Structures are given as C-alpha cells and as structure tokens.
C-alpha cells in the first residue's frame, strides 16, 4: 500500500506539472485573484491587508487545483476506461485516490510562491514572515488539510459522471465559507459555524497568523485534527460510494 501511495504521488505530481491547463491554473489564477483583490481593496497604505490578500488568493488556488485537479483526473480515468480497473484493484481505492488530491495540493503549493512573488514584484507587498518556523509548518499543514477535504469531494466524483463540472462549481462556495479573501465578519452569521468544519479555514489562518504575527500553533493543530476527521469521513464515503457505483454499474459510463 505504501508503494502504491508513493508511486501514485510521484505519477500525479509529474502529471499535474506536465499538464499546461493545471500549471496555468496554479500560476495564473492566484495572480489574477490577488490582482483583483489589490485593485478592489486599493489598500496601498495597509501592507498587512495586501499580504493577507496574497495569502488568501494562494490558498484559494490550492483549493482550486485540488478540487479541479482531482475531479479532472477522475473524469479522465473514466474517459480512458481505467476508473473501473482502479476500483476493482486489490489495493484499497482510498490509497489510489489520496495521492491524486495530495499531489494536487502539493502542486497548488506553487501558487503560494507565484502569488507572493507577484505581489512583491508588481504591487510592492512587503514579504516579511513574522514566524518562519511556524510558516514552514503551516504551509504543509494547509496542503494536507486541503488535500484531505479534496479526498471527501473526490469520493463523490466517483459516482458523478460529470465530475469535472461538479469540481469547478465547488470552488466559490468554499472560498466564501472559509473567509479566504472576504472576512467572515462581513458574511452572514450562519457562515461562521460552517467555516469551522472546513480545513482551508484553519490552513489559511495558520499561514496568515505565522506570516503576520499571531498565534498560528492552535490553527496548525486544528489542521491536523480536521485532516484526521476528514480521513475517517472520506474512507466511509469512499466505501459507500464505491459500493453504489458498483451496484449501479456506472463506472464505465463517460
């Protein structure tokens, strides 16, 4: 299983970095959203707000690449007729699927570099990380928690024929509910409790607090806790949806 997981990671990282569509998504979209945020916020005199917007845009891109990358990868497997074989393989399907979402999260990590570089070079956003150690831990913690949330959504992609369009439509709801660019205080009150259950909320807070100064460690802890819960939920969902897809015999439908 370890070998299947690691080789799956290697293959999907290679595949995502070779695919021009995914690479453009990682590089272009965070820059675009960060630019919109800079121009809309117009906060030239508030460097902390600009840096927070950069980080928010980067985490937005991480979620996008996970949800779009994994839905696209699964739809691709369906089109190629290999999805059925992967489900039928003796290795648990979660071990085949997890590398797709985590690999896309790792590739999404590039978006952080792209956004910070763009902000610094074009908009003079100061690149001062308050707690480099916490930041270095917060970024992978964020990647893992987003990857694990992606695993739950990927489970639904197994039963949904048009996985890619479902994946694309999942971007904005999570961006809104996790307060990545728009603070939760501006949103209706009921969004706050929803955000507690979403990993990107804690991942973003951990990165932001470590970069701007604050208490990132509780947020990093929440990332790990939420990731563990997601793993359990995703395993149950996968088991359920896999049985459903087998009983309906829909895995070969494209």
């Amino acid at each position, binding site marked *: 299983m370890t070998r299947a997981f690691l080789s799956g990671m290697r293959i999907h990282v290679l595949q995502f970095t070779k695919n021009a569509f995914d690479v453009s998504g990682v590089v272009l979209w965070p820059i675009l959203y960060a630019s919109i945020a800079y121009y*809309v916020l117009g906060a030239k005199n508030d460097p902390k707000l600009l840096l927070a917007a950069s980080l928010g845009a980067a985490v937005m891109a991480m979620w996008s690449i996970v949800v779009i990358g994994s839905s696209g990868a699964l739809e691709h497997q369906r089109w190629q007729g290999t999805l059925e074989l992967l489900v039928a393989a003796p290795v648990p399907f979660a071990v085949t699927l997890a590398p797709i979402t985590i690999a896309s999260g790792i590739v999404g990590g590039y978006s952080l570099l792209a956004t910070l570089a763009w902000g610094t070079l074009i908009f003079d956003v100061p690149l001062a990380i308050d707690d480099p150690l916490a930041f270095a831990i917060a970024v992978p913690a964020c990647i893992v928690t987003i990857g694990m949330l992606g695993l739950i959504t990927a489970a639904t992609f197994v039963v949904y024929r048009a996985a890619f369009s479902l994946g694309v439509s999942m971007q904005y709801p999570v961006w809104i509910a996790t307060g990545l660019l728009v603070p939760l205080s501006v949103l209706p009150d009921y969004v706050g409790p929803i955000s507690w259950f979403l990993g990107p909320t804690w991942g973003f807070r951990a990165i932001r607090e470590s970069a701007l100064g604050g208490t990132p460690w509780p947020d990093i802890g929440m990332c790990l806790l939420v990731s563990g819960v997601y793993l359990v939920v995703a395993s149950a969902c996968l088991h359920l949806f896999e049985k459903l897809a087998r009983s309906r015999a829909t895995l070969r439908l494209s």
Partner: protein
Amino acid sequence: MNWLRVLVIGGLTSYRALFNWISPWVFFPILIVYPLFQIVFFAYLGRFAGVGSDEFFLIGNAFIAIAVAGLFGMGHSVAGERRSQTLASILASPASRLALFLGRALPSIVTGFGVAVVSFVLGALILDVDVVAAELGGLALAVLAAAFACTSLGLCLGALGLRGRNVSLFADTIAGSMLLVSGANVPLERLPEWIQALSTVIPLTHGLEAAREIADGSSISGAGGLLLTEAAIGAVYLVLGLGLVRLFELEGRRTATLETF
C-alpha cells in the same frame, strides 16, 4: 435550405453532445451554481472594500457567465470534434463552414443568455438588488450583444482547436482575465492605463458598460453607442474566427494533423 439544415440540426446535435445531456444535473453545477456563487463572492468582496454596489458586481458577474458559456461552449464545440475523432469527417464534408460553425455558435449564445438571466435573477434575490421592469429590455439587449461577442471570440478559440489540443487552456485564461480586464469586478478607472486600453478591444467591456448605464436609468438609445460597439467587436471576432477556421483547416489538411489527439 441545406445550409439552414446544417446550421440548425448540426448545431443542436453538437450542443446536446457538448453537455452529454442524459441528466440536467450535468448542466446545473457549472452553469448555475458556479456563476451564482461568483456573484455572491465578489459582491461581498466589494462590500468589504467599500467599492462598487451590489448591482455593480451582480451585472459584472452575470455577464462573466456569458463569457464562460460563449468561450467554453464555442471553443469546445469545435475542439470536441477532434476529441471524438469526427473532425476529419466534418471537414471532409462539402457543408458550408459558416453553417457548420455558426450552427454551433447559436446555442452557445442562447446558453449564455439563459445563464446570465438566471444568475442575474437569483443573484438579485440573494443580494436584495432592486431591478426596475423598464430596464429589463435594455439589459436583455446588452446581454445579447455580449453573448454574441463572446461566442465570436469562442469561435477563434475553437479554430485554435483545429491546430492545438488544449483549447481549455486558452478559454480558461481568457475567461479568467476577463474578471479583471473587462471591468466586471474592478471599476476600470482603478486599473492601469494599459489594461484600460486592452479592455476596449475585447468582448464584454462595452456590453457591461451599457448594461450598467441602463441599470442606472439610461435609455436604450442612450446606451446605443456602447451596444453597437459591442456588436461590432463581436462581428470582427466572428470574421477573424471564420478566417482562422479556414486557415487552420487548410493547414490541418496539409500536415494531416486533424485526427491527432
């Protein structure tokens, strides 16, 4: 008569294949959920920043829905032929290229129109934006003009599909750039001059401006110049797209690359 048959029946068949319409749920997430949440996202960003009104973002992002439908729908209707290995057969037929590809364009325009209307209505309800009934005719005209212009640009992308494999990349990049460059989410005066200059030669910008003027109480004739400019930009891209289709078809035949995928 045959020209019309190719246009209507060919276009409708291609359109059904585009969405694999076995279930309407395939249609729902990408064309309803996505634009609706996009409207809400940018409206709240505007509220947070104190920039623009809810109406500004409602109109801006409803129009982006048109761009997405036009760019992806039209782009993929041509590139999809390559994917399903039918491109060579279609291009080997004596059918008019204009009828073939315009047939594929019209449903995209209708889709863009429908998506914009649904997004606009639902977005207005969620954000509590008042729309005066007298404005609806003018807004519909602006939507039609923008849908035509974006679909024409989509034809250019579709033509690139005769040459390259990944039209999604171009469509995604252009649709994404329109969020910023067309003034959909950032007032144009806040953007650098070079982006403002670029915004004048792309679809959507003038249609958006016309819609916002109409929503602010201007008459259709008052916004007529902008509507005509949007339609003219669409016409230019349509001619360019048809030219590119012709060029890349000849090139594809010469290099025997129409069936490579």
